């Protein structure tokens, strides 16, 4: 009986859906990346690459030989992508999920770190100090944006008494968007999202001119491709979370993707116009500005 509910009703379809979700997450993220590059180019008065450039880049990366310093590096890269893909399985897309789950937010927030931990393990096995510095900055920044995001989740609990993204999606489909009912939380979420996506002004972990693209300094060929895919899936997950939390989740898949797209374009526009924070400045900003906004939202929700 216990094993029975572990095995889904029709395994074939569930398996297909899981694979489909994984591929879709990567594809959507790469598409967004391409269009984002186009947008950045237009902001800089350039023509910009075609929007399918990211696909070409990833395929090219996988078509090149690669170097590795130790098998731990390979293992870490694989762990990195796997963690993000696993997290993507729990994000409800317009209420659809590859298998029966509630879209538990805490599980997603704790499945993504295994991706980052894996990537960190891989790049620090490469033995380059620059990559270790980049990972150190990334983890510091992570403490910065996880705290406001957690507070936003708490305010959701305060209002709706659930952390399931699916339930939040249904609630917003019935009532209005949370964007209008909890604006401070939304602003905090936008700031935290900028930090999650590691776009400017929070891209101190990459810093190509400073620490030679930080964690990716030793990544070549397919490892770089996996890093690209990881970033793509991260875009999908993080924008998806915010859409499910604040933008009503969307009735159809296309509406959902559109909302994700708008969020990511906004992030890229900010990325195009801002300079880079130092890591402790970024962390302070995330705590004090975004965090205080989120706490205000939490207090409001508790009083309401």
């Amino acid at each position, binding site marked *: 009986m216990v094993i029975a509910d572990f095995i889904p009703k029709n395994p074939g379809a569930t398996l297909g859906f899981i694979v489909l979700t994984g591929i879709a997450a990567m594809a959507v993220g790469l598409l967004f990346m391409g269009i984002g590059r186009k947008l950045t180019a237009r902001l800089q008065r350039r023509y910009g690459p075609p929007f399918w450039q990211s696909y070409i880049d990833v395929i090219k990366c996988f078509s090149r030989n690669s170097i590795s310093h130790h098998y731990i590096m390979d293992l870490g890269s694989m762990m990195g992508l796997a963690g993000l893909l696993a997290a993507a399985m729990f994000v409800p897309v317009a209420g659809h999920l590859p298998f029966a789950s509630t879209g538990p937010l805490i599980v997603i927030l704790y499945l993504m770190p295994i991706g980052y931990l894996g990537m960190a393990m891989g790049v620090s096995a490469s033995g380059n100090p620059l990559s270790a510095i980049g990972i150190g900055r990334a983890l510091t920044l*992570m403490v910065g944006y996880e705290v406001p995001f957690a507070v936003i989740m708490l305010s959701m609990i305060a209002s709706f008494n659930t952390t399931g993204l699916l339930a939040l999606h249904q609630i917003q489909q019935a009532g209005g968007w949370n964007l209008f009912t909890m604006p401070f939380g939304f602003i905090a979420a936008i700031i935290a999202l900028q930090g999650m996506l590691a776009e400017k002004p929070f891209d101190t972990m990459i810093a190509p001119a400073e620490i030679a693209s930080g964690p990716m300094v030793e990544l070549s060929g397919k490892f770089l491709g996996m890093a690209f895919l990881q970033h793509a899936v991260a875009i999908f997950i993080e924008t998806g979370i915010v859409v499910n939390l604040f933008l009503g989740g969307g009735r159809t898949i296309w509406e959902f993707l559109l909302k994700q797209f708008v969020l990511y374009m906004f992030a890229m526009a900010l990325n195009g116009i801002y300079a880079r924070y130092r890591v402790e400045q970024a*962390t302070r900003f995330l705590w004090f500005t975004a965090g205080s906004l989120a706490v205000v939202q939490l207090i409001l929700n508790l009083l309401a």
Partner: protein
Amino acid sequence: MISLNIFSVSTGIIGVFILGVISLAAFGRVRKLQWVLFSLATLYLLFLAYNLYGKWGGAPEAPEGMIFTLMNTHLGWLFFAFSTGVTFLISLFSLSYNDKKHATGIAPLWTILMAANTGIFFAADWITFIIAWELMGWTSFFIISHGREKSFQAGIYYYALSLIGASALLAGVFILHSITGTFAIRESIQSASALWSTRPGVLYAVALFFCTAFFTKSAIGPFYMWPAKAHAEAPDDFSAFLSGIMIKYGIFGLLIAVLPLFASYAGPAVKGTPIFLYILGWVGGLTAVLGTLLAVRENDMKRLMAFSTVSNVGFIVLALSTATVFGLAAGIFHTFNHMVFKAVIFLSMASVKFRTGERDMHRLGGIGYRMPIAFFAFLLGIIAAAGIPPMSGFASKWMVFQSLFDNKLLFLAIPAFFASTAAFMYLYRGLHSIYLGQLPPRFANIKAAPPVQMLVMLVLMLMVFAVGAFPGIVLMPVKAALGADSLAADFMKIEGITSSVNLSVVAGIFMFAFIGTLVLYIIGKPRKKVEPLDTYTSGEDPADWDMTPEQYHYAYRFYEPFEKMFNPILEALSFEKWFDGFRRHIVRTSESFGRWLHRPGSGAFVLTTALILILVMGIVVW
């Protein structure tokens, strides 16, 4: 009526105690034999636990005419079984760890400590509890200061705090007895809980004393700093026991004594949680944050993990402070998980120290290339400690958060989130600085860990992963021990009010995704292995600059920006100076007393006065 049955608890305690004394007295020369005896003792206790299962409560078995009473409660049995099991694995590890070079003579004392361990978990009255507690205290003191000067300083520090705790416990117990008239643990607590309305002041005192006692033992709140000293200076294999099991005695004490008192408090409440419990929760949360911040600053790997232990204990207290069934289950679940994953972390570090003899992380590096099993043990350990699926820590941390959400203690969850996210920082630092990065040439040809150590680590890794995928393995017994049928948790699935998670599905999805990435990895073009120093250096050849791997290993002051942010705060609120002063005071008084005793004649004086006193008392009694 003392039962001569070999499966009875009292036989266990006394037998193990006598065994320890014998091995201490007789086999001082043959240390291997002492360790074998210790392993046999733990094995016997494990056997005892197996036999005691199901024989709950009943008449407290008491030797004839003695006030020592023992009772086999379900909860105590659970703690006893888990601690003994983990200790058995550690003892196997110690068998191979204590070779010619690393031998320490702590085995018999540790055996006696196991007797004390049994006593603490099976005591039915406060006298037995206190005696076992004291036995635990001084044996562990002697083990921590195992004949090394530095360790001796740490041991004195630890013992000073234990003195505070023990005396506070004694005082609390006597007050409790004076108001309830019984020494039996359950009855006294129950009857005391009824007195909140009539005699609150006395209960405040009792609760304060108990909290002091158990906080000192578990390094909660202002007593956060002794693990960093004691765990770091203790023998490496004992550190695993110290950090995994001994620090949980305070948790057990909170469970049996303090929580019932606080939960029955009828005064003001925060969202239905009695005010004292709420304060306890904040103490736990702040302890978690404090331990995390201090761990991020550490450069000594054992001190770092000791502070991580402090942070985890804070989590446990946070969960217990809700005093709901879910919260208690979460706390106990996290206690057992922490036993296992902290044991595996410390044992992995012990085998690294066994091979390298280094404790400073910036002097290590790249050890994982030479000792893969130790590396993977540490990796799984920190994944669990960070509370990341699919390892065991996630299930219990998820339950901790859920217990807070369910009671709407939302502000309490903020420090918890901060601590559990910042935990990634120091855990990753340990992974990078010890096991990854550049391998120093002087460690270029160290061997992998000995097979027995590897075996123990593998078993513990398996436990960590199995509990992560199937939390029911631990959660079911906990549920049974609490008699909590309302706890909606089965073998794979845990359901809180605000959310529910099926951890087997999470683990399965992760495995499936890993297979998918493996496919991607295989279809990619082949990879070429290069030398560790062949990295991007802007075209410079490190050899031209006489760059050695040690210099090239980025490990020292790893999180300098973060430290700069928090240093002022941490300097501001440091209890350490005060406690250092306390330790010095104790040392001075005891030394002066000792000097007075050693003065010729004074000993005789003491002896005669004692004799006269006994005479007088005898006459009076007669």
